[in-house]
């Protein structure tokens, strides 16, 4: 099923300035907790299919663990080489301490 809201995790499950990745409706999704709020993007880097799970979240940017390519977590925009293809983003809502993602 696609384009459905999924109860992904509790807000406490994601540390401040960090991310977790999970499978939702067959997609690997990354959920970020930043000072600007929670965001969701595809969980695999667009450069070489590396999981973003071990990446660094800093100033609203996720840095890929393999080659340090950077994406804006809000827009999915690829910010610096070696990434050029944007990350897919997902709608996200926080309700009663739970994070919901539309996938």
């Amino acid at each position, binding site marked *: 099923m696609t384009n459905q809201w999924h109860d992904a995790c509790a807000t406490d499950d994601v540390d401040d300035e*960090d991310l977790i990745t999970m499978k939702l409706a067959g997609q690997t999704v990354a959920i970020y907790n930043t000072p600007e709020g929670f965001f969701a993007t595809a969980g695999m880097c667009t*450069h*070489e299919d590396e999981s973003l799970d071990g990446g660094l979240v*800093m100033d609203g940017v996720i840095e890929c*663990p393999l080659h*340090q390519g*950077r994406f804006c977590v809000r827009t999915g925009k690829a910010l610096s*080489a*070696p990434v050029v*293809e944007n990350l897919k983003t997902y709608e996200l809502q926080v309700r009663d301490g739970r994070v919901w993602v539309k996938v």
Partner: protein
Amino acid sequence: MITNAQSSNIHMDKKQLKALMRRSDRPGLTYLAAWIALLAITGTPVILTAGSWWFIPAILVYSGCFAVSAYALSHECAHGTAFRTRWLNEAVFWVTSLLYYEEPLHRRYSHASHHTHTWIEGEDNQMPYAPIPLTFAGWVEEILGLGLYWHQTKMFVLHSLGIFSENVKRVTPASELPRMQSNTQICVAIYLGLAAISMAAGWLWPLYLIVIPRVLGGPVMNAFILMQHVEMAENQPNIVQSTRSFRTNWFFQFLYFNMNHHIEHHLYPTVPFHALPDLSDKLGDQLPPPDPGFISTHWEVLKITIRRSLGRNDRSAKIRQAFSDDLTGAQNDQSVA
């Protein structure tokens, strides 16, 4: 075949790793200031002794300090880990890549391939130009950096004209090639512009403080680079087997931005240089003991290449080394003694 911590069966607590990955400008700025101070201290005698015999030792000392750290800082900036502030990282990346003699975007993409496919022939774009396993002639070629000079010069010409080899296209997205071309043109303009201004103004300092030191310091710099993977296992996914860490004194660690912790760097390239000793401690006995000091490890490598060239036993008991390969390199190494 992707080479990373997972493919090397190395594990680290996520929270500990995140703490080590944290960025700050301070360590990078401290190192940068210390390096510039060192260049000022060792460079002053170069200028003052020009024309006398004292010029030779003065420029040799300066060249080592110049070339090794220009390479190491450019490498750290290629990863974006030298500074937290992005523009600062990119500005230093440009300057140090120019000093190292490589266009920055190409440096970043070729280095990405080195991390994805570490020491895998045909996929890692930063393997030695001489055939491996190295013979003595190959060692000389690598230490003098002859392949590197030729390759980089060719690239400055071809990339300026928008001509890219299949190897470059394999690791660079097509949408980035125009930027690589314009970057290369900017680099060439800077090199030629500085040469023209220097000739017109009669300046000798670019020659004494940049060009000659890059060539004279090249062998020391290349020795550091060669140590990272030489004699280690090719064409397999385990970074611990393809990569070497070695002990060295504080001064060389400083010049080399802690890259003697090279296995650790390949396992977790998001960890900045200043946190590598800490990462090494935390990984503990998941890692093999580092090889002995820089000079002694390199001395072993040199003896191995000489013995190999003479058709003698090429094993060393003192450093980590892949199991024997044949001289053509046709047989893949799979493991490390």
